[in-house]
């Protein structure tokens, strides 16, 4: 004997329809998940690449004199091109200064308490006064 609901559809048919709907939802969810995952992985790989660039770029604030001159050294293995320097969150210098590995360069800046250097790779290095530690 076939059990029917009040609307007249058999329970087996209702269950089959429900399963089809669930399958469709699952497929849609999987599609969204796969797309998001691939986007997340791509973003993650990009971020990893950025981190790798940031890590290979190793800038050191060797000294920051009271008149504002800052001695910045490239202690990484690759050349680094400095494009902007911020002092206390204000743009204080912009240009193109490429520092070879182990090279130190003097930048004329205003005096301040915090210094951030942006490089051509897009990395932003916040440099601290290491000698005051």
């Amino acid at each position, binding site marked *: 004997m076939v*059990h029917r609901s009040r609307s007249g559809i058999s*329970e087996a048919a*209702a*269950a089959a*329809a*429900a*399963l089809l*709907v*669930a*399958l469709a*939802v*699952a497929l849609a*969810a*999987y599609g*969204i*998940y796969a797309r*998001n*995952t691939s986007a*997340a*992985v791509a*973003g*993650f790989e990009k*971020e*990893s690449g950025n*981190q*790798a660039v940031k*890590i290979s770029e*190793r800038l*050191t*604030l*060797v*000294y920051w*004199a*009271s*008149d504002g*001159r800052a*001695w910045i*050294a490239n*202690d990484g293995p690759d050349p680094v091109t400095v494009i902007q320097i911020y002092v206390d969150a204000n743009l204080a210098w912009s240009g193109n200064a490429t520092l070879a590995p*182990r090279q*130190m360069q003097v930048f004329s800046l205003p005096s301040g308490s915090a210094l951030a250097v942006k490089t051509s790779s897009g990395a932003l290095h916040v440099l601290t006064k*290491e*000698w*005051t530690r």
Partner: protein
Amino acid sequence: MRRRGVSSASVIVFALAIVMMTTVAAYLSVSAFSNTFTARRNLEELYDRGKHEVRATLMPGIPPGWSPKAYLLIHEDSGEGDTLLDILVDRMGSVTSARINEVFDAGACRIIRLERLGLPRSINGYANTSIVIHFSSGAVGKAYQRSWVEPDEVYPCGRDPPERPGVYTVNIRVLLETGSGRQVCGSCSSAVNPPPGNRNYSPYEIARIEAEPAITIGNTQYVFKHWEVSFTGYRDTVTYGLNPLNLLMDDHYFVEAVYATP
């Protein structure tokens, strides 16, 4: 008997719940992995920088010897090994930098004669001065002047050779300080040992010069006040209250034992 079936709504809800939980779990795991990876790399970089610790000491002479000459004692404390790249000296706004390029083995220390780098040779030249050293690891250290360093701290350290070979001469004399000024004592041969005059020493030999605590000239008693040491031919004097004075012979020196009335 009629069996109660599973309603279609509950199946849909169940399926949706499974899908949502799977999606959330996957998202959380990817995001956690990404954050952990980034944090670990950043921590590694910080650790790598932090483990390179350097220490710099500005000192007059090389213990146990004293001299007016300025030396920089540098310790590489991390046990990693590093290369000293730069020394920067800020003398009241006038900054001089010198490129060194000297490899430090793990835990090594070195005594640098600052005069060798074209910097002032006298310790007096470093008043109100900041000295910063920079290593290839990114380690940066500020030098602090210490009037005395335990010889054990410098004994194992490599040091710059003397400025030149041969002998160094110390010229000793006795000064009497009175209310009317100073005068050289010509009859004070027994006041200091070795007696007043010129003495030759090998480079980096320590000349032990001792003064009598008190002397009587005529009817006046004088007590030993201090030593005044200067590079021969220059009047840039460094004062020492020590008696005896262990003078490091790293240059030609002019030494005056100053006596004053009590």
